[in-house]
């Protein structure tokens, strides 16, 4: 009969091996499970707005549009060009509003302020508002993610 000591060693060795391969199997299976749980990324590539609805006659006028599930703000600049922002505070994801009289974006959640170019100027926001590309094509205003316009 074998010594008890050798028995224990063999048992521990086997247990470790089984544990290790079980972990390997678990890791193999858990990977798709985790990927499934994380929802597919669904920010739009681009949003097309009818130009007629977004005339924005005067400088400093603005209108909101849906950027996927977030609000966007389309704003007429003083030189007549258009700028689009994702109207979500960079602090804690609250929706911001544009205050034309003050020429500032305002986030009511934690009193965050951005200037008319979306630069964070007061309060907790750590970064400027996210900007989007605006392309005017005849009757359409195409809004794309920054840097992806052809």
């Amino acid at each position: 009969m074998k010594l008890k000591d050798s028995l224990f060693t063999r048992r521990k060795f086997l247990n470790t091996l089984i544990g290790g391969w079980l972990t390997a199997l678990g890791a193999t299976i858990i990977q798709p499970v985790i990927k499934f749980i994380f929802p597919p990324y669904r920010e739009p590539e681009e949003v097309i707005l009818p130009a007629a609805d977004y005339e924005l006659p005067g400088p400093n006028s603005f209108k909101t549009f849906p950027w996927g599930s977030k609000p966007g703000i389309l704003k007429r600049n003083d030189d007549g060009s258009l700028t689009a922002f994702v109207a979500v505070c960079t602090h804690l994801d609250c929706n911001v509003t544009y205050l034309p009289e003050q020429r500032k974006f305002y986030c009511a959640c934690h009193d965050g302020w951005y200037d008319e170019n979306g630069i964070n100027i007061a309060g907790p926001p750590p970064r400027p508002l996210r900007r989007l590309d605006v392309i005017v094509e005849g009757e359409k205003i195409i809004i794309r993610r920054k840097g992806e316009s052809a």
Partner: protein
Amino acid sequence: MKSIFLYLKLILSIGLIFFFFGQNFLPGQPVAQLGQHQLVKEKSSNESVKPGPVNLKEKTAILVFLGWMWLVIAILIYLLIQKIREVDRLYEIKYYDVSSHGQEK
């Protein structure tokens, strides 16, 4: 009793093989033959959302995954059989009777 189980196993295996494989490996039947015998999982005509891998890369990935998974399972089964031999031997020499609980794992 023995003969009943022989029949049972035979019937079950034929039935199971048919249900699990028969229905699905016959997707390409001509529509004219289908009529009222059309299958629930008729792939060629009824399915608007086709599941499964969409390109060669995904097909290869699935095969690699399955190969790896079965390899791991085979190794685990080999190890478990060793473990079973060990615990059976321990049981035969009445190892558990003298030891207190919590010894095994």
